[in-house]
């Protein structure tokens, strides 16, 4: 009997506490920046595509929902010819982001992706590529890497000496 009254009393008390339910979608919840939502492909600080088509995200993906084809421009810069994520399979584990050596692929705070037709959950590169750097400003893979691309000759990357002159006789 006493127990029962105690229970009723507790319920009564709760009537005066602040509600925790957020009135989504009228009120938007706070999502931390590292939230793992809709995946995007970002650009480097120079505005070029960051993705170099290395296939590391696709190999890290436990549900194999990333498919792409790498290609190269006439100056040797690699990028994906096409890049597809099937969000109807994606489990938002973030492994792809962790695997990406260029910060290209990033998970964002957007989770509002419901569709009536599953086919609309297949995102192509046009749907994924944003115009900014996303969460990681500053990093440009090609400034670190040793390959030559348009606008960056051998020896012009960070921590690189100028190319060896093979015809030099100096010891």
């Amino acid at each position, binding site marked *: 009997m006493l127990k029962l009254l105690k229970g009723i009393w507790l319920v009564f008390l709760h009537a005066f506490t602040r509600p925790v339910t957020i009135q989504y979608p009228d009120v938007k919840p706070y999502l931390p920046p590292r939230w793992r939502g809709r995946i995007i492909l970002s650009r480097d600080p120079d505005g070029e595509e960051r993705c170099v088509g290395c*296939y590391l995200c*696709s*190999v890290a993906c436990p549900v*194999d929902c990333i498919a792409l084809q790498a290609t190269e421009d006439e100056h040797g810069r690699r990028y994906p010819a096409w890049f597809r994520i099937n969000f109807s399979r994606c489990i938002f584990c973030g492994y792809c982001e962790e695997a990406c050596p260029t910060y290209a692929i990033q998970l964002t705070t957007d989770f509002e992706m419901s569709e009536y037709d599953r*086919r609309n959950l*297949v995102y192509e590169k046009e749907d994924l590529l944003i115009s900014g750097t996303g969460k990681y400003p500053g990093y440009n893979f090609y400034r670190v*890497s*040793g390959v030559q691309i348009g606008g960056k000759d051998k020896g012009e990357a960070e921590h690189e000496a100028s190319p060896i002159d*093979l015809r030099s006789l100096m010891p």
Partner: protein
Amino acid sequence: MAGIIVDDRPYQVDERENLLQACLSLGFNLPYFCWHPALGSVGACRQCAVKQFRNEQDRQGHLVMACMTPAADGTRISIEDPEAKTFRASVIEWMMANHPHDCPVCDEGGECHLQDMTVMTGHAYRRFRFNKRTFRNQDLGPFITHEMNRCIQCYRCVRLYRDYAGGRDFDAFGSRNHVYFGRHEDGTLENEFSGNLVEVCPTGVFDDKTLMPHYTRKWDLQTAPSVCAHCSLGCNTIAGERYGTLRRILNRYHNEVNGYFLCDRGRFGYGFVNSEERIRRPKSRPSRDGQTIPIDKDMILRELGPLLADKPSRIIGIGSPRASLESNFALRELVGPERFSLGLSVRDAGLNSIILDILRRGPAPSASIHDVEQADAVLILGEDLINTAPRLALAVRQSARQQPMEIVDKLGIPRWHDAAVREAAHARFGPLFIAAPYSSWFADIATETYHAAPDDLARLGFVVAHELDQAAPTASTVNPTIGSLAKRIAAVLGQAERPLVISGTACKSEAVIQSAANVAWALCKTGTPAKLCYCLPESNSLGLAMLGGKSLEEAFSIVKNGAADTVLILENDLYRRADALSGDAFLKTASKVIILDTLEHDTTAKADVLLPAGTFAESDGTLVNNEGRAQRFYQVFPAEADIQESWRWIRDLAVASGHPAQPNMTAWNTLDDVVLALSEAIPVFRRLAEAAPPEKFRMIGQKIPRQTHRFTGRTSMHAPLLMHEPKPVKDPDSPLAFSMEGYLGQPPSPLITHYWAPGWNSVQALNKFQSEVGGPLRQENPGVRLIESFGKRTVTYFTDAPKPFQALDHGWLILPWYQIFGTDELSARASAMAERIPGPTLMLHPEDAATLRFKAGERTELMLGNRSHRVPVKLDAAVPRGTAALTIVSDFTDAVLPAWSPLIRVAEP
């Protein structure tokens, strides 16, 4: 055997090996770079350090390079010793000091020996804070990429290219940390084996340039064991596909055939599979002059069925030396043996069957490529190996090292000690006699060369045989030059322990082939176990000869006489086999021309019905190589819609016609059914089924996956077409599956789809598949040698030595000049090849040219098979007087060669 102690445990190893090889064979993961089982040790990279102890009491020990230390009895080493481990990690760290941050954009990534070894040693964090050294790259032509920043200076490339393959336009330049590996200037790598750099270089300096336009990581390729379709040697390959196109060819190790290496034709010739000119749908041509229109598969079968049923005796089947045994056999069954033609001219079919007959008759057995490498004296009669059987040329270069090895052995130098061995042998080469109509760079190591017209080459062979055994017939009126050359050759061959005679169909001369047999037989008869090696024109030439059938001329005359009017052509372009006039006449007379093929060509342009056949990558089948070895190739990826194996098309035709003659055929559902029928029908193929495990074969109840266990994109690649992932396509023909699921261990050798082992992602995972590193594969099934002549001792020599070649005043004997790039019908259609295929050229002796008042580069007119051609002239003093060599590229075929033609200088406008 020697007993060695590794980390306090005793092991038995082969004392002829070095410690590195021994440890790897025992299954230890000991990192290395510069050692290669086929190239030996030089101790350049310092990666394979282990601790060696003098005796049980020695606790201090000293670091040695495992690859430079013999696995002598009683050797005590430690791999796990902390000092050795630290040393190995430091070596990697030094290499990484200058290594670029390239893995994501490096084609080697995911199959990089440097990545594997770095992980193996445990080096993880970069401490080096200074600038990295950089190099400029070179453009090395259409096959190979160059990214010198990634080099770790292991010297493997230059040892392969120069020492092993004999290339000259590649070297190590510079000194200290400026060492550079490349050419003296930008330009195409000339050596025919440059593609092996892709696999030999442990880093991403050299990679496959043909892969780049459709770049795919190793883990994403669907791969299957295959057999090269581009010459008669049948090198084993691994072919890889992604998203429905074939992406690259890698070497597949076969201890007795190709070992570790392929030629560039085999590696880079795959592009024809993805060609725009593929026949992808059944087509029919309603009117002879009109266009073809695509037609539904069932419809075309319904249309053809009654046609075949009505008059089965009026059908002629034309087979092909580039189609599988099974497809040729299916055609033979459909039309009946009397109406099955080999699709070869009388002459070409005859040459192949003479070779078959010689190999069967014995006593000289046919040599595998491995046997060729072991030979200690070689005579080449009439073949330009580098162009007609490239991988064999590479093997012959190794055979030339056999005799100098005696010096090496006498000095007590172990054979794996490459630098010391080469120093001791010091540019000495064993006996190699090349008698061929013209020269190639490959002759640089020849003891003697002799350039003459085919008849004279045959005469040399006869004389050599006679020198060896007086009972062998000789040639008439031998001039002293030939006489003394023959004496020298005979003396050397007679003294050798494992002499070898190489010949083939390149001269299109029966006499040359026969004279080679006489030489080998004379050696056998006089007690030297000689072997014979013949090169044939195509991947299944010998298999087709075993099957047997009518010549093309007979087929032509059957149709001409009106005894048949429907023609079914299997994967064959008749214009490459016969002169254009008879080809035209034949195709015109036939009332219905049905062609099963993969690519459009001159003959398909005249077909009434075209059926899309699968290439080697889209079908399974068996090919018989030049030594008589039957080898299975496996389908790499499910073929698109209507494309299927030729034998399946023929089966479908049989079903559609309600085939009265061959009720069994309609019951063929799998390749095994065809193989069984073939092995029962023709005795020589009795053991055919042994060449590969049957479809029912399982490893622990599972099929063997063609996809790697980390194959990606499964739930995304088909998404735009189909939201529900399609089921893996069933493979009714083999124990392999188009799937990433299945048995993950090591299958028997013909079923190895890719080399991978934990910690070993690069091609060097192969070590783990060999019973002993550098030796045969575990559970090796090397295919079946269908011809064995061992034990036969009776010799019946060929007697018809030809008369000496007589030059004519106003005509030149035009000989075929085969080209590694361009002659093979299929690889010539690969886009990557285009840049390497030479233009048509006629090669002439300078003095002949002088009498004609030709200068190099000028053009000449010549008449072949009633057609006139204009080609530029090239001068070369090795071409025999009175003959000229014509490149067999583009429209030129060897069908009508050798032939006499006048040469008329074309006045340039």
